[in-house]
């Protein structure tokens, strides 16, 4: 493998990892702050992609699809928090598993009623449709590069919010000690609501951004859910930095695994996970 192909494969891996991070960060935040396990996370990823497709094919504008699908995802998150999740805080994990499993079935079936079950593709905005010539035979799609940049910017934004803002301070304090935060007079219910909705929005955003380079299809959420779980387990529950490390590790393992060990590529990430668990049962950056 020559240097340029290696670089391109590296880029492929990083790009995949960045998308994983985007989705998994939502999952890890919701768990870290609300203490709620959300198996329906992948379903919201899938829903984001379908919403983007529906809006894009109705309006013809990717920008509108992005904004619209994101807003709907967020609103859905707020509504679900109000109706269901609020009652879940403090309930045992089994109840949370069952609730989110029920939600998966409901969301999947509603999607089928609203959008059908066909496979669709979404066109990227026209100014991102070209490719950049890399070698004499290989070009790299501009949209993929743009996607990398957008994910990077979002990652930085997430870190900034958590590390530097008052909201982030409350979020960190809440993850550290829920009772204490409540005592300090912080509107915890409000924080919960927006963190949950934000988590859902991140999953939806992942689906929206991936729609132009992937296809939009019914089962797309399932694979993403499992990968996000592995990312969170690897990185440590509640740790956004851990999720970033985990996501990049998996993106690179998967990409290079496909090239070097095509037969077992999808097992490799689980081997990686098992190895990390042997070493650190609570993930790379998880609290002991």
């Amino acid at each position, binding site marked *: 493998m020559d240097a340029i192909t290696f670089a391109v494969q590296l880029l492929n891996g990083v790009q995949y990892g960045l998308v994983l991070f985007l989705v998994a960060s939502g999952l890890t935040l919701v768990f870290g702050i609300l203490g709620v396990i959300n198996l329906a996370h992948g379903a919201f990823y899938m829903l984001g992609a379908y919403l983007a497709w529906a809006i894009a094919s109705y309006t013809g504008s990717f920008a509108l699809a992005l904004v619209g699908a994101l807003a709907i995802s967020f609103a859905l998150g707020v509504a679900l928090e109000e109706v269901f999740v609020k009652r879940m805080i403090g309930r*045992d994990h*089994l109840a949370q598993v*069952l609730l989110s499993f*029920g939600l998966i079935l409901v969301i*999947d079936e509603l999607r089928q009623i609203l959008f059908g079950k066909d496979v669709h593709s979404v066109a990227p905005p026209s100014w991102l449709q070209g490719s950049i010539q890399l070698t004499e035979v290989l070009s790299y799609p501009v949209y993929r590069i743009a996607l990398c940049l957008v994910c990077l910017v979002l990652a930085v934004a997430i870190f900034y919010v958590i590390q530097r803002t008052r909201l982030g301070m409350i979020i960190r304090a809440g993850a550290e000690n829920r009772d204490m935060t409540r005592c300090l007079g912080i509107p915890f219910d409000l924080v919960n609501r927006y963190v949950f909705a934000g988590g859902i929005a991140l999953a939806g955003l992942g689906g929206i951004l991936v729609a132009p380079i992937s296809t939009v299809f019914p089962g797309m959420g399932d694979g993403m859910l499992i990968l996000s779980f592995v990312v969170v387990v690897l990185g440590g*529950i509640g740790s956004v930095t851990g999720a970033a490390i985990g996501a990049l590790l998996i993106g690179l393992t998967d990409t290079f695994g496909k090239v070097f060990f095509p037969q077992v*590529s999808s*097992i490799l990430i689980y081997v990686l996970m098992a190895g990390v668990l042997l070493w650190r049962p609570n993930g790379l950056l998880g609290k002991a």
Partner: protein
Amino acid sequence: MIRSATPVTMIAIAAALALALALPVIAPGYYVQFASKAMLMGMLALSLNLIVGFGGLVSLCHGAFFGLAGYMLGFLTPDSGGASLWLSLPVALLTVAAVAAIIGALSLRTRGIYFIMVTLAFGEMLFYLFHDTRIGGGSDGMYIYFKPEIAIAGSALLDLEKSNTFFYVALACLVGTALLIRGLVRSPFGHALVAARDNERRALSLGFPVFRLRLAAFVISAMIAGLAGYFSAAQFGFVAPQLLGWHLSATMLVMVVLGGMSSILGPLVGALALIGLEEVLKSSFEHWKLIKGLIIIGLVFALPGGLQQLAAMLQTGSSQVPDLGADVAEPVPAPAGEARSHV
């Protein structure tokens, strides 16, 4: 801990057993096959409840053990005829036990939500192992053209190809499973397992080896799931990676909660109720999964004690909502009594 069965329960069990024994005589063939399938799912729910209900460990990789045993039968079935049950069943179960021991040893190092996520990930690992590699036919699955043969000294003892015979074998397995779990729960082992669920730290400080205890329960439970998977594969003659996926594991959890986790037979009732409900919904509604999803959500909020709670509510008219209570207990329970602040 475990309540003794009331006379009413005993009568109900006896009646259900009598009905089951008579079923092949009174019901058409399709329903006998359907009942066999339902009983195998019931075994699965019973096995899962050993670790969820009595062990307090929410596992999302039980489907993988179910599927793995089925695949083992597939591997052991020759092209020309059925595999010998005496050989293939122990091999399948021991394989499941070995895999469960490894997965359990890794996952039981974690607690609570981590345990759920890790078991989910390991279950999916097995799913992808069969889905993405060519062993076992990859995503196409694998066909088992002959049912296992039960023979002694070369002469066939039971012919599993006959659906009535298969039904009785499945029934025997189910009854055996129920008795086994009843025995386990009442044994010193079962008491220690429940103690570890209720208060892990106390159980440790009394000297119970909680890790080994849970690992043993995990492996036993996985082997029962494997037994169900073995016969399920034999019944359908086909195994696919989807059998190992977490959707099956989650459905099993629904059965357990629906039936009620506090009793030995509750999950069996839950399994039969859910499968029967699905059969009815499937043939009546286009979007039956929507209804199934809503039922599950309703179960979580309105009936966390399952059908048992419903029965109790009908009897007493109360509607107190207990929690599912099958979580890994906090290491330290709330202080007892009216502890005064100390001088």
